[in-house]
């Protein structure tokens, strides 16, 4: 039966809405995946040469294998935002005569299939080939060692994401570990790097203890998760019965409601975001993420040449896009029915939506710009340019594309805007947001003024910001003409 459950995993993936897109979209997705994998592979191959070139005093192997704790902590940090481990896919099996043990095992097995457990291998495979001598050591065992270390991260995340007593103390322990590692790297960097290197060498020299320790940790953590999962199956049904703490008006809603004309729309938009699990997490993490970005950009991001800079522009614009614009894109939320079935002007609705996300984007813009003004003025100009671009032209693209977007947010918390809910063509339109900045950046590089690219994207954004009433009026008319089609499409879904 376990094998049958595993085959369901495959069917679930194969038959997901994601794969029901057009061939063109599938091809594009395949290309993006291939591109990312090749990027990691290329980085693994080129990093030894780059490090040799930039830091000839220290071997590339010592740099990278010495930094394994940092790499793994970064990986763990990233998992908190990327790796979801929903237990809900076992719900349809709970009433059947299947042991809870096998369902818990099934959940554990499925969780291992997440791409985040494998991406580092695409980097380390070529890097190990370039830095480890196969005559004296075993490259494959080195890769296996990395996989085991990643497996510990995966198991830690699983434990944290599985409610129970253990999760709480483990979260606390992790915080201490993070702080200790940070302090240790600051106080005794050589010692830590040497120990990290030794651990990796123990893998490639096939020392059994090197494998036994992480393997034992994985088994122990997985066993705890296994037990916790069995206990937590009850919560899958009980969670829906508990009173939502978000229900009821709060200070933010009162504040939003007090805004003339747009207040009622803003309250609806706020409730939509704050009462949906996915949107809530992105809404509440945008401030700490902004601060983290400012610190990262302020200290570590330097001008890496024009090609690299173009990538930075795309990534930041895309990052801002995926943080806020995705919600703007999903404006045909459930309250759209309410608005569409009453005598409310669509232009006001669009403008209210725009101002709402402008407010959130503006808070982020001010916060990051202020921090960067102290840390790295070049990056501040760059970020300001991209933010203005995103709040002007970027928002226009998303709102414009959203008019024809006919899947909606689900307040039950499962489907906010995501790639699964969007047809192939509309998904590509969304992805254009990431790339459309590129021509402007290239023209900006050619301008004979310092920070030409930042200036050009910023000015473009300002033009759209100043003219927002004009383009919003047109969008309102388009949405008015389209609303009945959208409403009909929602019904069908």
């Amino acid at each position, binding site marked *: 039966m376990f094998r*049958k459950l595993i085959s369901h995993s495959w*069917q679930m993936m194969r038959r*997901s809405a994601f794969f029901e897109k057009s061939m063109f979209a599938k091809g594009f997705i395949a290309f993006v995946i291939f591109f990312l994998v090749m990027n990691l592979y290329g980085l693994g191959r080129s990093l030894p040469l780059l490090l040799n070139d930039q830091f000839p005093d220290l071997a590339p192997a010592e740099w990278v294998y010495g930094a394994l704790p940092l790499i793994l902590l970064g990986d763990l940090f990233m998992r908190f935002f990327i790796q979801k481990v929903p237990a809900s896919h076992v719900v*349809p099996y709970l*009433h059947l*005569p*299947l042991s809870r043990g096998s369902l818990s095992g099934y959940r554990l097995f499925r969780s291992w299939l997440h791409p985040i457990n494998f991406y580092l291998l695409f980097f380390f495979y070529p890097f190990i080939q370039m830095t480890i001598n196969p005559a004296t050591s075993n490259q494959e065992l080195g890769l296996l060692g990395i996989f085991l270390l990643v497996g510990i991260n995966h198991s830690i995340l699983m434990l944290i994401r599985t409610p129970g007593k253990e999760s709480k103390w483990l979260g606390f322990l992790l915080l201490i570990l993070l702080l200790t590692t940070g302090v240790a790297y600051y106080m005794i960097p050589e010692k830590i790097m040497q120990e990290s290197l030794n651990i990796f060498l123990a893998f490639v020299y096939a020392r059994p203890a090197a494998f036994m320790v992480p393997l034992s940790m994985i088994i122990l953590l997985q066993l705890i998760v296994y037990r916790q999962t069995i206990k937590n199956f*009850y919560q*899958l*049904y009980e969670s829906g019965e508990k009173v939502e703490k978000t229900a009821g008006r709060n200070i933010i809603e009162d504040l939003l409601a007090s805004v003339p004309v747009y207040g009622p729309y803003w309250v609806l938009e706020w409730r939509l975001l704050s009462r949906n699990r996915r949107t809530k997490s992105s809404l509440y993490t945008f401030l700490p993420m902004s601060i983290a970005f400012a610190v990262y950009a302020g200290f570590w991001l330097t001008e890496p040449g024009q090609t690299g800079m173009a990538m930075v522009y795309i990534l930041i614009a895309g990052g801002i896009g995926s943080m806020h614009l995705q919600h703007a894109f999903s404006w045909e939320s459930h309250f759209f029915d309410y608005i569409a079935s009453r005598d409310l002007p669509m232009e006001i609705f669009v403008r209210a939506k725009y101002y709402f996300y402008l407010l959130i984007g503006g808070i982020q813009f001010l916060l990051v710009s202020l921090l960067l003004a102290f840390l790295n003025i070049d990056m501040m100009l760059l970020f300001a340019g991209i933010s203005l671009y995103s709040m002007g032209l970027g928002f226009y693209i998303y709102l414009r594309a959203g008019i024809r977007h006919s899947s909606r947010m689900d307040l039950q918390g499962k489907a906010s805007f995501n790639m699964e809910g969007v047809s192939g063509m509309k998904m590509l339109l969304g992805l254009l947001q990431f790339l459309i900045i590129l021509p402007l950046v290239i023209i900006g590089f050619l301008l004979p003024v310092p920070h030409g690219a930042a200036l050009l994207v910023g000015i473009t954004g300002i033009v759209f910001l100043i003219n927002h009433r004009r383009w919003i009026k047109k969008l309102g008319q388009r949405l008015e003409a389209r609303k009945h089609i959208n409403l009909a499409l929602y019904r069908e879904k």
Partner: protein
Amino acid sequence: MKIQIQRLQKQYSGHTVLDIPELDIASGELLGIVGNNGAGKTTMLRLALDLIEANEGHISIDGEKVNEDTHWKRHTGSFLDEGFLIGFLTPEEYFHFNGEVYGMSPAQVDEGLELYKRFLGEEILGTDKYIRQLSTGNKQKVGIVAAMLVNPSVLMLDEPFNFLDPSSQLIIRNILKDVNQLRGATMMISSHNINHLADICSRVILLEKGLIIKDIRPEVNGRLDEVERYFASQAE
């Protein structure tokens, strides 16, 4: 198979949503559960299927406490909500998977499906649609048939008449009657439709705020007038 409830209590955030000191459901009995929204009907069924944990007391099926063993599941068919369905399977695949879990061969499943073909109609079988693509009413049909297809000795259904067209409601009413009378299955069925319950149930309990306030046997007490009077008084 006999179902016994003893000192059963369920609370959410300190608020008691179900409190049944004792209830015995005899083997072969068809128990209807009625009550307004929030009365505790679904909670009772979820506890009976061990989907949620009781704060106190227990439910046993055939002498086996549901939260201590899973053997009873082999004889129990159930459908409470869409969460029981596997959306990425076609109805045929789901029926066969369900059958396999209960130890049935594919041929037995196909044979069983013949009995429900009229109820399932033409929009479900052989359409190559995934369950998630079906209408709510058709999903309801798939869930009910999957629960009955495995020839259960105990059957639990939550609002089985909901979302069904009038003809399908009558068909399922007759099927339930047959399953109960011919196979002797013990059944727990919650519903807002008093007429259907009056027609098929040998016993009906009325829940209010988690308490059983009436326990009626239609063949003894006549129609469910008492229950109807209760709901009428609530509406005034």
